[in-house]
């Protein structure tokens, strides 16, 4: 009897310890994205704040409104959590994706996610698909390809094809002093997108882009880069933290709409070929 009691006690202590180590599952909110007020915004995807921030499982739909459309579904849903300090809003987005796609190349596409908010807070919301003329949407876009570069992947062909050999790049000619104006000019000459400041061209410091759209096909870089973010790969999916200032007119305690999109690179999803949500109500918690 004594031995049995002691075994039960041991099991009890073990279970109590296990419960203490396990992260608390956040409460689920099916109807809206609720961004609770936090004095300090989290900077990581495993901050304890995410244990209490309500989780909204956002169902993803095919982008089948404008060509080129996505005709076959892939990612079913994205789990959304949000918190705000009254100035900025941070989203924690996680979704299942068994293949990590972060290498660019011909016929290769990276995994990505985006958050879309109306540029102006008004009951008359823009069209959920990239907004519409005169009713802009602001988009924060994270890409696994960008993240890999920020994480240190070198900006050279061998980083993508390790066995690639190149005879010669004119910008690396012995006659050009490394870093000199002449050398940099030569580099630009063979990289027009880079010399024009195209945001798709590296090198890059951030894995995110601030974008604005007024309808499909109108996406452009915002005048200022104000978002930040980071993405982490787990065995079966991605978890991404995105943080951006609240859109104009939005403050603690107010409401707007938010939409999300997920691209599955191995499914050749890129641009308009994506899984996306409709507008989802977004409620900002009041400051305490």
């Amino acid at each position, binding site marked *: 009897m004594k031995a049995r009691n002691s075994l039960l006690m041991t099991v009890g202590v073990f279970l109590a310890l296990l419960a203490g180590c396990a992260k608390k599952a956040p409460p689920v909110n099916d109807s809206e994205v609720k961004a609770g007020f936090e004095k300090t915004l989290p900077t990581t995807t495993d901050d304890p704040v995410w244990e209490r921030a309500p989780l909204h499982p956002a169902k993803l739909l095919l982008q089948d409104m404008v*060509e080129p459309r996505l005709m076959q579904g892939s990612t079913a849903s994205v789990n959304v959590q949000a918190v705000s300090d009254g100035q900025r809003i941070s989203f924690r987005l996680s979704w299942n994706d068994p293949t990590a796609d972060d290498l660019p190349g011909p016929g290769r596409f990276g995994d990505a996610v985006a958050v879309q908010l109306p540029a102006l807070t008004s009951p008359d919301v823009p069209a959920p698909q990239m907004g519409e003329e005169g009713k802009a949407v602001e988009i924060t876009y994270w890409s696994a390809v960008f993240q890999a570069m920020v994480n240190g992947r070198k900006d050279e062909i061998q980083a993508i094809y390790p066995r690639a050999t190149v005879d010669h790049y004119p910008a690396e000619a012995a006659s050009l002093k490394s870093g000199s104006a002449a050398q940099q000019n030569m580099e630009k000459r*063979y990289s027009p997108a880079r010399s024009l400041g195209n945001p798709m*061209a590296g090198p890059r410091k951030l894995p995110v882009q601030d974008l604005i759209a007024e309808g499909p096909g109108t996406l452009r870089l915002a005048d200022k880069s104000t978002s930040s973010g980071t993405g982490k790969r787990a065995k079966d999916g991605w978890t991404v933290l995105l943080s951006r200032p609240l859109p104009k007119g939005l403050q603690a305690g107010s409401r707007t709409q938010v939409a999300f999109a997920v691209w599955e690179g191995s499914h050749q999803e890129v641009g308009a070929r994506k899984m996306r949500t409709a507008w989802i109500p977004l409620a900002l918690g009041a400051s305490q």
Partner: protein
Amino acid sequence: MARVYNWQIGREMSYWYPEQRPKRQFAAVFDTNKCIACQTCTLACKTTWTSGKGQEYMLWNNVETKPYGFYPLAWDVNLLEKLGAQNWDGQRYAGRTVFEAAQAGERVFGWRPEDIDYAHPNVGEDDCVNGVDKGAHFSGVHNSWFFYLARICNHCTYPACLSSCPRASIYKRPEDGIVVIDQARCRGYQECVKACPYKKTFYNAMTGTSEKCIACFPKIELGMQPQCFVNCIGKIRSAGWISKPEHARPDNPIDFLVHVKKVALPLFPQFGLEPNVYYIPPVNVPRDFLLQMFGPDVDAALETYRNAPKDKDLSGLLTLFGSTEFIVAKWKRADEQVMGYDESGKEIVRVPMREPTHVRQPFDAARNVARTNIS
């Protein structure tokens, strides 16, 4: 989709945008019979435009050996197989173009090559498959055939790349019809790579954008021909301007070859893009293959080309190929000489129909040496 007229298929067709032709259209004629696949054109282009990081695999200009050479792999046979029957009813195409065959959700019927498909240009294309026995020699009818196909962007009147881009990052320059990708606007979706049936747009993994042949427009703006034209040692190419068939001018070299003599034909006109690089078909290739590749006018074109020695205007104009770095906007033959003129009518080149022959004696008495080259 709009309805547009494509004279190469003899009918109206569907296209994403309404018909809007440029003020004038860049065009070219390539004589496949003269090409020796030396790849000087390929290197001229490569060193001029695609020597940067991310461009390693790109060949805006390439020369492949038909029927078994491709860049990228199977670029033509893949689409030919997927597109279905491509019959002609006389001069009118009875099948579907890549725009008409577009499936639900697509702007263009296309396919996307993988990176490996670009990896081995020209490898094995010209190799003799079996060993050759000692003393073997050819006799009788030669059943084997091949020819070299030099390819650049066709700067199509109805570009599939332009049509497919959801961001409208690709445009046709109104002043010369050259098709370019706006490198500031492109976001690298590769829709153009999927859509172009000729596979002449390329994704650059270092810049995150797609890039393509720009017909050396900085040279065109100076009245000069592109690099791949002027470096061609076989003198197979001539660049210029093409008119619509009803406005063809016999004194315009491209119009003369394409519209008047009909000796130069578009590549795969059935795709529906109205491509603006025209080919004089190779003479020793099975007719069915050429019919599929160049359309229903191929018999007449070959007949005309075979008779070129008797046609002083045609053979005269062909001697102007590769004779000048400048664009020959107009031409004229006077007896045994052919003249090329620029836009203003200024003579830029004059060539004899037949080069004078100089014969040197086999022995140089002054230097007391035998000459090895005496022609």
